[in-house]
């Protein structure tokens, strides 16, 4: 029975965790301009995430070490300092754009500008971390995240032409707006494979005390959970392709996304869109803040359990307090949420090699993971993924310049 409960919670977590400001907004922009053409990037991103989540979960279950621990212990501080610094920097920008997502959902509902909502949202996120423990954060935000299923309902209601949807799953090059196409493709990959997700997942696995008998749960959670998350953002893209593209609406401002569901589900569509954007981003806010605190604490050897009272690990709790409130200040300063979200997704994609390639070495180190090390399939898949992330890294700056606005 425990196994089934773990499985369902795992899947629920990945739904809540997967969909956030980045994946929603990039999918809406992609659908509005290129129709189904960019679906393949969501598929690629979801497969990549599945791979990394499964492996970081296996690492945690077999060795009791999180990704953060393993990066420091295996490669020493000389290498670890790079994923640490890039990870914290990039996650901070993503965190600010998540707070932006929640604040904008509140702005669309109330008319009060998102800048006023930024600090209350950051404070609410901090309060949940300060009072709640890991279970509350993980399960709470994911259960609420279930409301994001409205996207699947809406997508089905629009009866998409499944043949062309399938065609969208094949990598194609665009016939117009080349740079914008590839900029969105990279942003979507960055939105799907976010390092904080598998760092958070491996820390959760260690905190829940996973052992080698949880490997099957781990595999199922990774595959089912992440694919469900992938289907959700694909649904968002499909709706944008069927609602915005024919009407010629391109998303230049974040709030335009609010028009996504009303034409399909009327007022309930509008309310549910705000609810799912707000809740998914709020869940991501707490998860990213924790993931950043985990990364730093694990890297430097502090106590880091979220289950403990804040007093028991002062530096860890101070870290997440400062991080979330600072990110709130960034959003309160009124930075354009759409540009920040796109930019942070692009930066996430560009920072992937720093965590994906070491996973290659970690998961093949017999001394570390013993016979649970990668089989040829995971190695081949991780190899392809590493190549993709390196290509993305080198294309990031030119794409930001050409396709950036």
């Amino acid at each position: 029975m425990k196994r089934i409960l773990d499985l369902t919670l795992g899947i629920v977590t990945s739904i809540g965790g997967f969909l956030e400001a980045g994946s929603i907004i990039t999918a809406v922009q992609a659908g509005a301009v290129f129709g189904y053409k960019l679906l393949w990037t969501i598929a690629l991103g979801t497969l990549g995430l599945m791979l990394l989540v499964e492996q970081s979960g296996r690492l945690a279950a077999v060795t009791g070490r999180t990704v953060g621990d393993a990066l420091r212990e295996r490669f020493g501080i000389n290498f670890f300092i790079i994923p640490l610094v890039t990870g914290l920097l990039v996650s901070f920008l993503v965190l600010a754009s998540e707070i932006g997502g929640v604040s904008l959902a509140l702005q669309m509902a109330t008319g009060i500008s998102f800048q006023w909502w930024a600090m209350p949202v950051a404070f609410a996120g901090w309060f949940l971390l300060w009072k709640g423990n890991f279970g509350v954060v993980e399960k709470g935000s994911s259960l609420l995240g279930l409301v994001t299923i409205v996207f699947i309902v809406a997508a089905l209601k629009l009866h998409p032409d499944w043949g062309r949807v399938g065609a969208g799953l094949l990598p194609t090059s665009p016939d117009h707006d080349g740079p914008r196409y590839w900029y969105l493709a990279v942003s979507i990959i960055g939105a799907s494979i976010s390092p904080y997700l598998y760092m958070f997942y491996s820390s959760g696995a260690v905190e829940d005390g996973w052992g080698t008998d949880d490997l099957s749960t781990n595999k199922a959670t990774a595959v089912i959970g992440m694919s469900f998350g992938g289907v959700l953002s694909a649904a968002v893209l499909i709706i944008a392709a069927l609602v915005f593209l024919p009407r010629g609406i391109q998303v230049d401002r974040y709030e335009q996304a609010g028009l996504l569901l009303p034409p399909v589900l009327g007022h309930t569509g509008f309310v549910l869109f705000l609810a799912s954007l707000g809740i998914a981003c709020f869940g991501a806010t707490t998860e990213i803040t924790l993931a950043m605190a985990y990364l730093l604490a694990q890297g430097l050897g502090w106590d880091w359990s979220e289950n403990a009272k804040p007093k028991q690990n002062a530096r860890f709790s101070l870290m997440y307090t400062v991080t979330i409130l600072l990110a709130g200040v960034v959003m309160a300063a009124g930075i354009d949420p759409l540009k920040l979200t796109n930019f942070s997704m692009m930066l996430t994609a560009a920072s992937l090699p720093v965590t994906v390639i070491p996973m290659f070495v970690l998961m093949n180190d017999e001394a570390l993971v013993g016979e649970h090390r990668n089989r040829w399939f995971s190695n081949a898949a991780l190899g392809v993924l590493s190549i993709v992330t390196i290509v993305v890294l080198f294309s990031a700056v030119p794409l930001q310049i050409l396709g950036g606005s």
Partner: protein
Amino acid sequence: MTARECRVELLIGRRVVDASGEVVGRLEEIVADYVDDEYVVREFHVGAFAALERLGTGIFGRSLLRLIGGGRIYTGYIVPWRHMDLSDPEHPRVTVAKSELRRIGETPGPRSSARPAAQRRSRRSA
């Protein structure tokens, strides 16, 4: 600092030269044994990444080396403690010619620092 001390973490990754000044490789591992309540150094492992020699010691160079070199799959030399001169920790020197050193993997001895994470071995290597 009592007697004469040097720091392992600053030694690791340093370029090691032999008696004639020829480059042996980079210091990758120090094996010590737990002998009557003391961790006594038995040997040093100098990894010879011929291709990566020029990476240099910048942050990026050393970290890339750690990423690749950190593995156990390297070729290199075993330098018994007697032959390693650490008087200048910045430039460790081998007191004999490179040719006299045993290559890693040649002798059937236990793999130098493979230490199965879980079990504890009788002769603990630190």
